[in-house]
């Protein structure tokens, strides 16, 4: 830089940096407060501390030892794994078909997916379909009802279309069936896109709660950790938790922390991918 910044620009830069720091603090304080307090035996005396006054893992021990808490956690894990696997399979296969430019009826298959982005029948008609299929009070509607998101479908389709057609020709000449091409060529070449969409589905299924309340009304033992968390922290009545006289502040904080952990673990790995994935999809879509 040959020129020097003017005084007003320097002032702007300092204020801008301070403003960004303020934003960071605003976003982080609520989360830090919860995580720190979950290790604090004296968390009920709430004054902000960066380190717990009396460090303890009691709250986490309770979570692992009580089936009433541990079971929803397992359900969350299992449903997240199955749900994202199913959704990724269905979505990427459909996107693979759509990415074939000369597929007869391509416009139709694209169109019926796009319509669902702007118009849906709504909660009650979908609820009644699930009921008619006999899926009410089972775990199946949780992952069947959201098995394909039109927006992610378009992103993946764009990703697949970005693969040079010469590679497909080569695979065809080598005698690959379309499915073999998909598994051996398309999937390995689309890792950033798959990672991004995969993360979105994983987070979606991990964060699900309303569908459990809607579709599983009479079998609360099928509810996941988010539903448990909601009844622990938000609903004031503590029915069903008589098992422990321990619904203390730190247990609530620990439950929230447990629910955040998977997201925090996955987040740094996939962050670079999802920004790239979204941008590529966004620019072309």
């Amino acid at each position: 830089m040959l020129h020097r910044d003017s005084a007003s620009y320097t002032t702007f830069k300092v204020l801008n940096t301070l403003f960004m720091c303020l934003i960071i603090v605003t976003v982080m304080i609520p989360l830090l407060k919860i995580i720190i307090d979950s290790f604090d035996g004296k968390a009920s005396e709430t004054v902000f501390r960066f380190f717990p006054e009396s460090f303890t893992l009691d709250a986490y021990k309770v979570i692992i030892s009580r089936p009433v808490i541990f079971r929803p956690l397992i359900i969350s894990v299992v449903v997240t794994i199955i749900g994202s696997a199913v959704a990724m399979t269905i979505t990427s296969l459909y996107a693979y078909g759509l990415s074939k430019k000369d597929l007869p009826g391509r416009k139709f298959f694209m169109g019926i997916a796009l319509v669902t982005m702007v118009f849906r029948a709504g909660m009650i008609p979908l609820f009644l379909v699930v009921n008619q299929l006999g899926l009410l009070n089972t775990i199946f509607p949780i992952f069947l009802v959201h098995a394909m998101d039109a927006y992610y479908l378009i992103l993946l389709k764009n990703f697949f279309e970005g693969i040079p057609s010469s590679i497909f020709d080569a695979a065809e000449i080598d005698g690959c069936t379309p499915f073999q091409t998909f598994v051996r060529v398309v999937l390995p070449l689309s890792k950033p896109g798959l990672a991004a969409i995969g993360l979105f589905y994983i987070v979606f299924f991990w964060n699900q709660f309303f569908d459990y309340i809607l579709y599983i009304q009479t079998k609360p033992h099928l509810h996941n950790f988010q539903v448990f968390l909601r009844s622990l922290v938000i609903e004031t009545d503590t029915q069903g938790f008589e098992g422990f006289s321990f619904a203390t502040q730190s247990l609530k904080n620990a439950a929230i922390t447990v629910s955040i952990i998977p997201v925090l673990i996955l987040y740094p790995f996939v962050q670079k991918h999802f920004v790239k994935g979204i941008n590529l999809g966004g620019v072309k879509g």
Partner: protein
Amino acid sequence: MGQSLANNKGNLLSKLNRFKMFYLLMLPGFLFLIVFRYVPMLGLRYAFYDFDLRGLGDFIGFSHFRDAFTSDNFIRAFKNTLILSSLNIVIQMTLIVSISLLLNEIKNQFFKKVVQTVIYLPHFLSWVVVGAVFNLLLSRQGGLVNEVVTTFGGEAKHFLGDQSLWRQTFLFILSWREIGWGTVIFLAALSGIDPQLYEAAKMDGANRWKQMVHITFPHLIPTIIIVLIMNLAKIFNLFESVFVLYNPLVYKVSDVIQTYTYRTGVTEFRFGYGTAVGLTRSVIAFVLVMGTNQIVKRLRGESVL
């Protein structure tokens, strides 16, 4: 003529044959769309029937809609939906665009990365977690916020249980979760602006403010329009956020069409009425999106959808 038709037919058949494997692979997705997206649309007819736990009754025309629009609770939910959605869109769009522009001015790449990493994060937390976090922080007894308020001599407030505070609190929490994520697409658009434009503007003596007004902002307009239309599509989608943050104390300012649909339709088993109310919401959202798209088409000669 006849020959070419037969030929076309043969072509189509052999084409379909060549692609049969692809159709097979697409089948699960296709079935999903039919069963869980299009069959429910047939259920929209329930909006015109008398339908409750006893089953499907008589055709009653627009009765449910008349009932809805004369019901105080529905009118209230309708108003709240409009108020919360429009405030939310205006606040979020303003903040997202401003923060993107400011963030774009940060030249230290490491610091910029740190800010981005932090502000994207809340978007990935479930509404239950966000609701739980703020319920604890805003709690009247011992919540961090009221702790600070009382330390400075203020009076402890019931942020989520007070009709005069609920909307502000709700919009703040909504912004806390979504604004950072909203900047992703704008930062992408900003990084795509040709640096030569800025060089040329500097030559012409434009200062940084003028560069922003004449180069940066105009380049953001297409993105702003896309995001606006996408947000309009979601405009009435205030369900989970409201569901975890409202309570009977504040129904008057917080009940929205979707929470109202859930309470009447599912918990009171008024399926026909619930369908009618939900349909009203879907139709309005659809009209808003298509209308905006049409306006954009008129103004700019190209549509987004």
